[in-house]
């Protein structure tokens, strides 16, 4: 129906920054599904996830000009999405999402290729849920220590110490 479906993310975001509504629609078609699914794994409340997804793409519309064009646009969109979710959760009385208690962690692509069956996977499995949640929030979701602290409902200092403990345990397990 429209040739913009073939455009690269970078070109689309450039057009969005220029006020192109159709380009935003294509970006949405491309990125909303995975964002919705991934955010759903962070928060069980559908209404909150919906709002976060909405906010994310409205923010993409308003700030597409600020995307620096480096790296994958998906990472940028995820960064907005997880922070929106965080903001929304913060406003709610019940902060910590249950999903965080059991989800796992990975670092970078190369490491992850081996995670499933490798030593790192076993090492991560060996971490306590609290330590795993910290590693996940900072490494996988790309949050800062402060944001991770707010999300998990613990002070920034605690995030840092737990992170150090987690690293030490992982090093030990992999040694």
């Amino acid at each position, binding site marked *: 129906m429209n040739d913009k479906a073939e455009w690269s993310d970078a070109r689309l975001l450039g057009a969005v920054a*220029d*006020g*192109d*509504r*159709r*380009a935003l629609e294509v970006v949405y078609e491309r990125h909303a599904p995975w964002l919705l699914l991934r955010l759903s794994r962070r928060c069980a409340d559908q209404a909150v996830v919906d709002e976060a997804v909405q906010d994310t793409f409205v923010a993409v*519309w308003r700030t597409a000009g600020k995307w620096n064009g480096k790296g994958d646009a998906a990472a940028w969109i995820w960064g907005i999405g997880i922070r929106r979710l965080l903001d929304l959760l913060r406003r709610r009385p019940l902060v910590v999402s249950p999903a965080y208690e059991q989800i796992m962690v990975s670092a970078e692509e190369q490491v992850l290729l081996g995670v499933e069956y490798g030593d790192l996977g076993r090492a991560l499995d060996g971490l306590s849920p609290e330590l795993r949640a910290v590693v996940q929030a900072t490494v996988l979701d790309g949050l800062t220590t402060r944001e991770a602290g707010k999300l998990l409902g613990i002070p920034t200092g605690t995030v840092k110490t737990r992170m150090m403990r987690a690293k030490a345990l992982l090093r030990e397990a992999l040694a």
Partner: protein
Amino acid sequence: MSVVVEGLTKAYGRRGHALDGLSFTAGVGVNGLLGPNGAGKTTLIRLLATVLTPDGGTMRLLGRDPATERSAIRRRLGYLPQEPGYHRGFTVFEFVDYVAILKEMADRRARHDEVRRVIDAVGLADVSGKKIRALSGGMRRRVGIAQALLGEPELVLLDEPTAGLDPEERLRFRELISRIGENRTVILSTHQIEDVAALCARVVVLKDGRSAFEGTPKELRALAKGRTWLWEKKAGLLSWRTGEGVFRSIGDPPEGARLVEPTIEDAYLLLLGEGALAAAG
């Protein structure tokens, strides 16, 4: 018939009459309004838009009398003026939304849905967030058409929507206007004769505030049948040298002239030319 006009007169300043006893009817489809500048096209469109009130004669628009049921007519009317203005700082969406408010669409959500629909219909969805001042002339004209489509009007008045557009844009407008005319009455004022030939079911030729012709484009063309010819010399009412070096003329042919198939333009010029001669005589 959606538009029935009889003996319409409208004085124009001190210069005399913009309309001087005009009668015509128009129904569903695209109705072309042809005429030279000053023939009263814009005055007629503004009368039909209920912006002006006539000095004499009768009008029935969508079966109603504009003198007593103006609001009811306006609710079913779309109007693109000859030189529509646009608020400088408005985006396309904001402008169309503003007109939608003037069209009494109070419910915000429903109004926005309708605004999106008409912006989509004229192919401007891509730029609906852009400021109007950043758009090309053709796109601005499409914004004008979009607002005229708000609320599914039964009567759409377009005053020279293709003037000043480049050929490609004009072709796109033809497609758009013919689509609009599929299920409603469109009155299209223009001096692009090819537009009339291409899309109008009926055509009215205005001349000096009166109707000089009313019928189908085919009937208009037939007026020039047997009165369009090629010859070596300049002759007839109007004559011009063609690229092949012979003269193409309209009017009463002399002996030995080679008759050719007329175009709508020939017929239109013939109509205007004859009148001009009569006025001079």
